[in-house]
């Protein structure tokens, strides 16, 4: 009986069962997966079976057939082949036209053309990106208890689709996912690739809720990096390195130190939204403006930003824009609480006497100009005001609750308001929101004059001499009143009122250039530099974002950026309480020819660590990488890899059924620049791939699992292929690619962070239902029940292969799901449009769904159902049939 004492608890939290990991006894049983990769000799030609003597894949597989006393199945017919190939490469069924064209040309050339056409289709990238998303446990929420939404996860998904469609060389594909932000400055959009590092769950309540520096927080950070490491190493090198979190196995080529070296690679990053630019020109420009912004932040004018001529021109422009302001004076000033005002020579009005709690001050005057477009309110300082004002509150603050303008008695609509400074949460727009509880304030910038600008919806129809009334409502109390207001008007067309210039700058402009002090010259140049830089920043637009990793970001509660790599210790027995020495960034020690510890020039630059790992992974000598990917692709074509455990090439994983074939594929794939499209073409043109899936009792008796590939494997459609096929068949697919994911649920506020989702009540006709399933929003802890019943994996786990369950609940979901029922009605509508008689409609239905004519009895059965209970019921039956659900 274990009696767990407190000191063991944290071990429990970090510790996972590490029954075994990769590798075997080093001396006794050399581990196959890390043996050097050479090009194996092709087995000698076996001419016994026509078509099996040439293609290298066929020769490897045929050699094993001979050894095991098996023989291949005949080639599949054209209808079977095109259905298989189209589903494999695009996740969709072929159209009747495509089936017919292919059937009419039995040549091998036609097969190659078909494969090329499918690989060139954008649907290919969508299909294979979805496979990849399984492997890397992609979802768009954090998982865990506080399962919040990640608004910017999808750019990584789009990057995946583009990468597959563009046949990005595999090494580059890998590098962009580890360090796309670092290694490809010419292509800043490669930053989307590192979304890979953040696909996994993130523990918001521990990361944001728990204080920094506590044990619980450190554990959360170690566990978060563990997820990144497990994702990297399972995905790219099929190594279960996470097994070495607690101890290195006696016979293990993955040591505890290797594991923590990988932790050190990611010591500087956290999962967070990361901004990026779509192209290099924009990125370069933004970098320049940001560096200027930093200089400006230190109160300096960026060097070389302006010539004297530039400054003179800017000043002239500014003066022109300022000249158009007419001060509203004289005016009658009335106060609701009886304040007396003194008219000042500068056109302002100084409040005198005891300040009341609240006031509404009204200015009434004749319009000095016609066609007024905007009004400016200056709040000026004065020695007589508390803290010099400009307000009359104890600290010199003011609160303008509402600003109202009337002309000839009618209220004027104000379109927008701007101020040179806004108190936090007391912004100028609150002075025009007609809400007496909100107001504009200037804390903590008391003691300085400020200016607010109000732009009218349209120029005033009133002319010069008509009456204007301006009401300054200041109803917040505690003497938050304006001490010395001044109003002015303009009739400039389309005024560029981004920010009103401050009174200080106005004063400088009025001072002749020779008389300006050094400080004033600097202030003016600084003003221009800031204004120009801000304008240019704004013109660049906001940056795109991808949920990825970063070392710099704005803190969210207790979730703070690392800035530089955090210290990672080798934790003995995986316990945070027994830290050993500092871990050095690195990777596995067992791969021949590769350094296991990285030499990093800049210790504090976390990106150098990731760059080093990217190079380590994609080195030509990293035999694990090349073997891993060809096996993964093989797995998706045949339903089973040459190694049956695509994420685990370790001793406890499966061993390759055809090791030479695996090596031949890996070697050739690497030699051909890592082209996945080459790999698909090569596999799919083999006779092995083109076999029938027919059963053979005798062979099944000795090889039930079809490990030796004496036929093709029949596959059940996965959830996405099923859903997408139904949409395509019913004629409702929206082929639009990319962008934010489609939320196929109604969402309402939950009891805490996680919202409440309703999948069942979601409108089956909603447009969000009509794109391909790769664009479906995947919510980690509240998955779509239909997709879940059809074996969409739990997105908190890496899923190198899908299950294929058959259950009653699944059958019910497929029959009764609102979306699918609606699509069968749509399919019926389509058939009615495309064919006249019930017999012809059923014919068309079979052609669309099964790619064949119905047999006479089938035709009779299905059309009778259509006649008696409607075509929609017939469609629903066919869409639920085994022939549709399984691919031969």
């Amino acid at each position, binding site marked *: *009986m*274990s*009696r767990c004492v407190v000191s063991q608890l944290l071990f*429990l*939290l970090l510790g996972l*069962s590490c029954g*075994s*990991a*990769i590798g075997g006894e080093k001396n006794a049983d050399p581990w196959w997966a890390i043996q050097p990769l050479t090009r194996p000799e092709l087995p000698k030609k076996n001419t016994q079976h026509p078509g099996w003597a040439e293609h290298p894949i066929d020769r490897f597989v045929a050699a094993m057939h001979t050894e095991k006393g098996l023989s291949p199945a005949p080639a599949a017919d054209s209808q079977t082949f095109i259905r298989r190939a189209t589903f494999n490469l695009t996740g969709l069924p072929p159209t009747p036209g495509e089936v017919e064209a292919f059937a009419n040309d039995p040549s091998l050339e036609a097969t190659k053309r078909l494969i090329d056409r499918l690989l060139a289709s954008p649907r290919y990238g969508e299909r294979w990106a979805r496979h990849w998303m399984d492997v890397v446990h992609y979802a768009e929420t954090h998982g*865990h*208890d506080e399962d919040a939404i990640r608004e910017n996860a999808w750019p990584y998904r789009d990057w995946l689709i583009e990468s597959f469609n563009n046949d990005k060389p595999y090494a580059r594909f890998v590098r962009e996912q580890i360090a796309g932000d670092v290694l490809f400055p010419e292509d800043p959009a490669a930053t989307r690739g590192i979304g890979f590092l953040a696909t996994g769950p993130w*523990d918001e*309540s521990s990361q944001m809720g*728990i204080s920094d520096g506590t044990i*619980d927080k450190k554990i959360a950070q170690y566990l978060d990096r563990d997820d990144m490491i497990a994702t990297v190493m*399972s995905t790219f090198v099929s190594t279960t390195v996470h097994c070495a979190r607690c101890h290195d196995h006696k016979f293990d080529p993955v040591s505890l130190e290797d594991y923590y070296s990988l932790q050190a690679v990611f010591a500087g990053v956290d999962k967070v939204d990361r901004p990026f630019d779509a192209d290099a020109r924009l990125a370069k420009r933004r970098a320049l403006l940001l560096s200027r912004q930093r200089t400006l932040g230190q109160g300096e004018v960026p060097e070389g930003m302006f010539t004297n001529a530039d400054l003179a021109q800017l000043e002239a422009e500014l003066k022109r824009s300022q000249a158009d302001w007419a001060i509203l004076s004289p005016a009658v000033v009335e106060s609701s609480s009886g304040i007396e005002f003194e008219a000042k020579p500068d056109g302002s009005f100084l409040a005198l006497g005891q300040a009341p709690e609240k006031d509404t001050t009204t200015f009434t005057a004749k319009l000095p100009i016609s066609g007024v477009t905007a009004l400016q309110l200056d709040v000026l300082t004065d020695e007589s005001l508390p803290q010099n004002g400009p307000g009359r509150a104890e600290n010199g603050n003011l609160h303008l609750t509402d600003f109202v303008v009337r002309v000839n008695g009618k209220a004027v609509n104000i379109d927008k308001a701007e101020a040179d400074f806004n108190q936090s949460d007391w912004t100028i727009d609150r002075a025009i929101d007609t809400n007496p509880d909100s107001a504009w304030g200037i804390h903590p910038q008391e003691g300085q004059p400020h200016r607010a600008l109000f732009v009218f919806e349209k120029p005033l129809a009133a002319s010069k001499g008509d009456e204007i009334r301006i009401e300054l409502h200041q109803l917040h109390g505690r003497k938050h009143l304006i001490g010395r207001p001044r109003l002015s008007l303009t009739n400039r067309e389309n005024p560029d009122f981004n920010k009103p210039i401050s009174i200080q700058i106005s004063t400088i402009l009025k001072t002749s250039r020779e008389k300006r002090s050094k400080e004033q010259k600097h202030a003016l140049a600084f003003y221009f530099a800031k204004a120009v830089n801000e304008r240019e920043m704004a013109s660049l637009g906001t940056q795109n974002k991808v949920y990825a990793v970063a070392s710099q970001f704005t803190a969210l509660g207790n979730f703070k950026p690392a800035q530089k790599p955090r210290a990672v210790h080798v934790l003995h027995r995986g316990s945070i309480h027994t830290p050993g020495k500092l871990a050095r960034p690195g990777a596995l020690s067992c791969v021949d020819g590769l350094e296991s510890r990285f030499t990093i020039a800049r210790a504090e630059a976390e990106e150098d660590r990731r760059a080093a790992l990217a190079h380590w992974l994609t080195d030509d000598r990293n035999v694990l990488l090349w073997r891993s990917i060809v096996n993964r692709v093989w797995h998706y074509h*045949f*339903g089973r890899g040459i190694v049956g455990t695509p*994420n685990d090439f370790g001793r406890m994983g499966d061993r390759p059924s055809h090791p030479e074939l695996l090596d031949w594929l890996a070697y050739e794939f690497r030699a051909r620049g890592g082209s996945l499209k080459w790999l698909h073409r090569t596999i799919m043109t083999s006779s092995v791939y083109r076999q029938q*899936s027919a*059963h053979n009792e005798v062979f099944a008796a000795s090889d*039930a*699992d*079809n490990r030796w590939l004496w036929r093709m*494997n*029949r596959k*059940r459609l996965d959830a996405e292929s099923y859903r997408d096929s139904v949409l395509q068949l019913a004629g409702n697919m929206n082929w639009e690619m990319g962008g934010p994911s489609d939320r196929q649920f109604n969402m309402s506020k*939950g009891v*805490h962070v996680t919202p409440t989702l309703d999948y*069942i009540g979601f409108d089956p006709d909603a447009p969000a239902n009509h794109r391909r399933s790769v664009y479906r929003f995947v919510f980690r*802890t*509240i*998955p779509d029940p239909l997709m*879940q019943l*059809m074996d969409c994996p*739990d997105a*908190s*786990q890496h899923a190198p292969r*899908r*299950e*294929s*369950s*058959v*259950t*009653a*609940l*699944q*059958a019910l979901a497929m*029959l009764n*799901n609102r979306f699918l029922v609606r699509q069968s*009605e749509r399919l019926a509508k389509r058939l009615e449009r495309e064919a006249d008689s019930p017999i012809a409609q059923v014919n068309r239905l079979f052609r669309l769904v099964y790619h064949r004519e119905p*047999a006479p009895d089938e035709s009779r059965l299905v059309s009778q159902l259509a006649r008696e*209970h409607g075509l929609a*019921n*017939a469609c629903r039956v*066919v869409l639920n*049939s*085994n*022939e549709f*659900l399984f691919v031969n």
Partner: protein
Amino acid sequence: MRPALSRRSFFETTAGGFAGLALGQALAAEAADGQVIHHRPKAKRVIQLFMNGGVSQMDTFDHKPALDGLNGKKFDPGDGRLVESVTKSPGFKVLKSPFGFRQHGDCGRWVSDVLPHMASIVDDLAFLMSMNSPTNVHGLGSYMQNTGFTLPGFPCMGAWISYALGRINQNLPEFIVLPDPNGLPYNNHGNFTSGFLPAQHQGTVIDASDDQPVRYLFPPKEANHIHPASEAASREVLQALNARHMARTPGDSRLDARIRSLMMAARMQLSVPELFDLKSESPAVLKLYGADNKTTADFAKRCILGRRMLERGVRFIQIWSGAGGPSNNWDNHANIHSELPHMTRQVDQPITALIKDLKARGMLEDTLVVWTTEFGRMPFSQGQAGRDHNGGTFVTWLAGGGTQGGSSFGESDRWGWKSENGTTSHDMFATILHLLGIDHEKLTVRHNGIDRRLTDVHGHVVREIVA
């Protein structure tokens, strides 16, 4: 060892027709009973009552008179031991229980006044008096008590048991979850996931308050073209098409399994409404559970449904009290004195009635009832009179299914702060699996290079509470 995997692999592979299995054998995979029995089981089925939020142990079952004298003083366990709490507990001031405690039953179990009903059946309950958990965070704690891991994505106990033992019944799911109608618990469906086990073992979530409690059981209401006559005709045509297809593609047991699954689906359409029809329950039974009382009605209804599921051969049932979030659950941060009775009043009578009812029907012998929570609470106060999370020690009890009524194991320290002699979720899982005839160390599935178990690399059967 992975006996279940090889026998079931045909369901789990994406590749076609791994047709080594005879058809009948293949079908058994969704149907058979007792697939992974290592020894003679004492329990056949399990009903778990999960109190979401962290039940305060020292205000329910773990009587700590030492706190009375320390009330209001700064909590100091001595030896310079670090006292931490996940949210803020200013001053760490000791808070004695505001409830009275009395001894009950032949076993003399101390129970506080907030659980008068459960107090009357303590001789039927086997207590784990000092469970502990490595975390003080709800999400992680819930995962720990449901899956044996603090990380998401691992199969929960119900999924493991479904995977190991298979079906008893032919027309209902084998693992059913009844969440609180106010909402899902912390981690949402993460607590009911089959993780890397086949999807068929995930918990089927039933909203007992919905008029269609089992999702997809019937066609959507808006589909006017679907009605009983069309359904009968459709089923026939589907059956005929599938039969023709299978004749053309022989040797693939999955095709037949799917045909059978459609038949079972049809049976489910009949059996589920019958299951939810409580009209056949006697007024005495309804009253026993408190179905007639507004406070207890919801939990009573779900306990009665649970018993009806047990009767109909559902293997594993999980009933939740309390949704996630900061209130209306057992996460009593603000005021133990008012918040705890608000919860106990809802469940005390129904749970007691469930035990009594099962006993009266002779079902308690082979039905294991488990009462759990994700962690306990602190001996010091938070705010005025609330308590913060405490993974250090908490109480779980089991009943029936081969447990020894009136027994107990484990002890917390004198403040109810941490275990002196405790058990973990792994020990609880090991014990539950043991009672079901399963050796927890032998029930493994290889995933990503590791032979995974419900008990991770830990867990010991708590023999002290086994009959």
